[in-house]
């Protein structure tokens, strides 16, 4: 498959793996603990597991799977809000597929659908807008979810609805922002990270500069990374080179997609429709300042939070969950007290077990539940 297979080439992988092992060996005498490199994005976590990349790395390099899986970090209270909106008989509630299984305090969207709510899986908010055109007597709500990657498509859909004068479409905005979240991870006192693979698709929208603070203020090496397995290996090699040379700068491995200044029309649409919330609640991480966006007052007619009474209750994470510590790399998934027992993909308790991109689900599904628990 053109433009895909080139980035999965085994020979190139072998060359990169050797180069990574070589640097790791050079660094070994200086290390007091394994180097911890965080891939922030759930898409990267998925690739790492799908291609078995962790097993190709030297023992002194540990991947820490960050909080960048928008489905995983969705708090239970927000899922409850979705269910409440969806159970309105005049509503068709539309969502990306993998949000269907996220547990709320009472039920998931999948269960609500089985109980009779009209919930439909869509691949794009534009599909939801199409449903609104076809069902003028129903309110079609799109569950806007994800980081800056999916934010532009939500914004463009709202703008399109406004242009067409569609009055029965609204967005339930749960979009979240990358930079404050990385900052929260870096500011955490038990943080031990040495470098970052930055999310390539977020960077495609926001560009390279918003990541500068990681290198300048926190002196961590960071490489903007693509999503194929060779992208990951090359970026790891680039991060290790920075560490070996005692540099910390933002480098862009994903130049075939990411422009230094990002995507201007996308950024304009985002700033036209959305504004920063004072804080947003995260599953596993608690409340993070400025880590979410809401719709501007000018678009109140397209804002499900304004058009409907949303319960907006805060539901605390289960006490036994240690997702926050896993996300920061303080403990490994299998060190969590309930990993694989009370918390498993069928009945997830914690955020990271919810989506296949969540670190714990990825470990569990790949058979690590028997590993290292001794």
């Amino acid at each position, binding site marked *: *498959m053109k433009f895909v297979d080139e980035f999965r080439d085994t020979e190139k992988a072998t060359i990169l793996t050797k180069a990574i092992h070589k640097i790791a060996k050079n660094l070994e005498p200086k290390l007091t603990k394994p180097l911890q490199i965080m891939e922030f994005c759930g898409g990267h976590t*998925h690739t790492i597991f799908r291609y*078995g990349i962790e097993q190709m790395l030297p023992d002194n390099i540990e991947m820490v799977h960050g909080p960048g899986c928008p489905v995983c970090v969705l708090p239970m209270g927000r899922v409850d809000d979705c269910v409440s909106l969806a159970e309105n008989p005049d509503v068709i509630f539309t969502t*990306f597929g993998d*949000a269907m299984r996220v547990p709320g305090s009472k039920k998931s969207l999948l269960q609500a659908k089985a109980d009779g709510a009209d919930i439909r899986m869509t691949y794009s908010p534009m599909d939801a807008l199409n449903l609104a055109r076809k069902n003028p007597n129903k309110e079609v709500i799109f569950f806007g979810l*994800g980081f800056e990657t999916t934010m532009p498509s939500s914004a463009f859909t709202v703008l399109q609805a406004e242009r067409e004068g569609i009055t029965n479409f609204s967005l339930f905005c749960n979009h979240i922002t990358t930079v404050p979240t990385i900052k929260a991870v870096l500011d955490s006192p038990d943080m031990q990270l040495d470098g970052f693979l930055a999310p390539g698709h977020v960077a495609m929208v926001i560009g390279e500069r918003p990541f500068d603070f990681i290198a300048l203020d926190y002196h961590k090496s960071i490489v903007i990374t693509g999503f194929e397995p060779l992208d990951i290996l090359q970026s790891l090699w680039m991060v290790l080179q920075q560490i070996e040379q005692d540099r910390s700068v933002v480098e862009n491995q994903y130049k075939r997609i990411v422009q230094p200044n990002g995507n201007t029309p996308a950024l304009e649409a985002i700033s036209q429709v959305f504004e920063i919330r004072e804080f947003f609640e995260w599953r596993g991480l608690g409340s993070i300042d400025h880590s979410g966006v809401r719709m501007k007052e000018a678009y109140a007619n397209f804002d499900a939070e304004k058009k409907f009474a949303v319960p907006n209750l805060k539901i605390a994470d289960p006490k036994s969950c240690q997702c926050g510590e896993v996300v920061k790399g303080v403990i490994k998934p299998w060190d969590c007290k309930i990993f694989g027992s009370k918390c498993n993909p069928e009945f997830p308790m914690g955020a990271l077990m919810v989506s*296949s991109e969540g670190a714990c689900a990825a470990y569990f*599904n790949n*058979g690590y539940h028997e590993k290292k628990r001794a």
Partner: protein
Amino acid sequence: MSMALPKTRFKGKTITLSHGAGGKVMHDLIAEIFVAGFDSPELTLLEDQARFDLNELTKLGNRLAMTTDSYVVDPLFFPGGDIGKLAVTGTVNDLAVGGAIPLYLTCSMIIEEGFAIDDLQCIVASMKATADVAGVRIVTGDTKVVPRGAADKLFINTAGVGVIAGNSNIQANRATAGDVVIINGYIGDHGAAIVDARGELALEISVETDCQPLNDLIQKMLAVCPDIHCMRDATRGGLATVLNEFAASSGVAIQLEQTKIPVREEVRGVCEVLGLDPLYLANEGKLVAIVAAEDADALIELMQNHPAGKYSCVIGTIEADPQAKVILETGFGGNRIIDMLVGEQLPRIC
């Protein structure tokens, strides 16, 4: 529909509740659409049951095999097939993978009020054509009509009876270290064709379902290698699910090589776009067999010369440890464990 419809004296364009009410209208439907369409001597007698001569059955083998399956696919017509073809193939294959020679099928239809008679006729014709290819007869059946909304267009249930000959002993718990895993061609075609036929994505692909009866191929395989250890058709849940069943029942590890598993470019493309894994996509004409390594060459040669097995190959081996695990060598240098799916495959956000 492109298929030419057989001529019928049946009047009316759509199914109404009276077609299920037991009266004359129902009798006309059964006589003109089902009895005429399936055209089997047992059905023509219009008794409440089909009857078989036991002596004839025992000439074919020493064990009876029986199975049932319900078909609720949406849409009813898809590239390369339809619900009727599926309803015959699926049940025939469930018998065949146990080593049975499939002989007789039942056919129960639950039809939603308002269903088009033309479509029903098409589906019946497709069932008959598929039954002829597989060498089975549809010998008894049932029709129910339910009010609009009580079923989605048409559901079909078929049960099947077959006879197992010789001393074949195909069971999920017979895989042993040293055996090899064989598949009879490309995986995921059916799942991809259904995604395409739903038309939600306007994909420009041309994948057809792999829906095909496997009984002829399997009987020939058994002639060459009577001791096939395990065999199942990889339908819902795909190749990954069947292999997990074998690994768990036999208490062995199955080691797969990704580069050897045949997946069409178009199917890989669909999976890339949607975030699906071809290992879990449905098939309707794919068998997975586990056999002793020394039997593999002869079997593969035979299978590749059969129309249902042109792209047959060995995709993996059985090892003693780790027990009950399926491990995929990714072709990139790493390994990953292929587990059972928890629910259905859901497309990822980004």
